[in-house]
């Protein structure tokens, strides 16, 4: 019986190792957590101080640049501290193989899992950059428009869609029999539900053409930032948890 228990424990550890390796990049939550925290603070301040249009654009752009610089530095930090893993094309596409590669290939490309500097996924950098622009540029454009020229639903739905776009892939991957990994999926699914609920709440409370300084609009953005902060913080914790073996395997 002890042998069977040992075998099952080894089996579970193997599954956890496989999950950790396959998700090495997207479990690095500290790469995006500070950006989410900044966005949360800025949008909370926006709800109270009713920022003007250009203050909002400048603040969001600054947060974007700071997040990108932090992400680049943090990627190097993770590599110096935890090492380098090059993922395979098969790994990146894994959650979508059952659906056929189109139309979800685009979704998988934008998944932060692809380490484009090593291995066969190198060519995906351009696809990643293009899809990033595709989703983030309209958001910036919407913020730069006069308040009464665009209905608020479009902006909110873009925020929702971009967030779900980042969260959904994690809900589709195979999981090991680990309660902490199950909790991650539950958290991500909860986040999607929470964002959808927030979208409905904002629709119910915003006027047809909301002012850029409208508190509800900023609160909606703060909610998205808070949800993303929660999942990225948990990702970092899980990353460290999975990288801490109980003891050195016997040899």
């Amino acid at each position, binding site marked *: *019986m002890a*042998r*069977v228990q040992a*075998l099952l424990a*080894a*089996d579970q*550890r*193997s599954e956890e*190792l*496989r999950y*950790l*390796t*396959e998700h*090495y990049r997207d479990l690095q939550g500290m790469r995006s957590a500070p950006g989410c925290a900044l966005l949360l603070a800025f949008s909370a301040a926006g709800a109270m101080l009713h920022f003007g249009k250009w203050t909002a654009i400048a603040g969001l752009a600054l947060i974007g640049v700071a997040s990108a610089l932090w992400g680049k530095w943090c990627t190097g930090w993770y590599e110096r501290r*935890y*090492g*380098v*893993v*090059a*993922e*395979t094309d098969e*790994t990146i596409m894994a959650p979508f193989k059952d659906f056929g590669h189109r139309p979800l290939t685009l979704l998988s490309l934008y998944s932060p899992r692809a380490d484009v500097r*090593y*291995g*066969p*996924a190198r060519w995906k950098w351009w696809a990643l950059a293009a899809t990033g622009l595709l989703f983030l540029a309209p958001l910036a454009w919407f913020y730069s428009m006069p308040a009464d020229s665009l209905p608020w639903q479009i902006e909110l739905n873009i925020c929702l869609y971009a967030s779900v776009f980042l969260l959904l892939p994690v809900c589709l991957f195979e999981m090991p029999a680990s309660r902490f990994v199950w909790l991650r999926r539950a958290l991500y699914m909860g986040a999607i539900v929470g964002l959808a609920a927030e979208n409905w709440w904002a629709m119910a409370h915003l006027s047809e053409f909301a002012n850029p300084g409208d508190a509800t609009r900023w609160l909606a953005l703060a909610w998205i930032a808070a949800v993303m902060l929660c999942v990225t913080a948990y990702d970092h914790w899980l990353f460290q948890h999975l*990288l*801490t*073996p*109980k*003891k*050195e*395997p*016997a*040899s």
Partner: protein
Amino acid sequence: MSEANLPEIDRVVHEPARLAILTVLASCAQADFLFLERATGLTRGNLSVQLTRLEEAGFVTITKTIERKRTLTMVSLAARGRAALEEYWESMEQLRAMARTRPASSKKQSLPGKLHPARG
């Protein structure tokens, strides 16, 4: 249950430290020495020994490059290693199935499998 019916288990793969290394490598294109050290929990010396053993068996490929004045040791799973690992998990599945189906009276006995030395 006779020992002849038991599936063969590759000793090179069956050893826990090497199994952990192969499992990690099976899930990625390649990984560096530091990641393997952190993920498997092995000491540097032990990991180095196990990697040499796996390389000798033709299960992994090790490449060393200089990056920012540091030696980056990248390890990838060779086709032979992948085949051996898949075969190992199939054998373990068979063993598990046998353990489930054997009569309750014989459950006190252990089910060791039939180990064979390294192939290759």
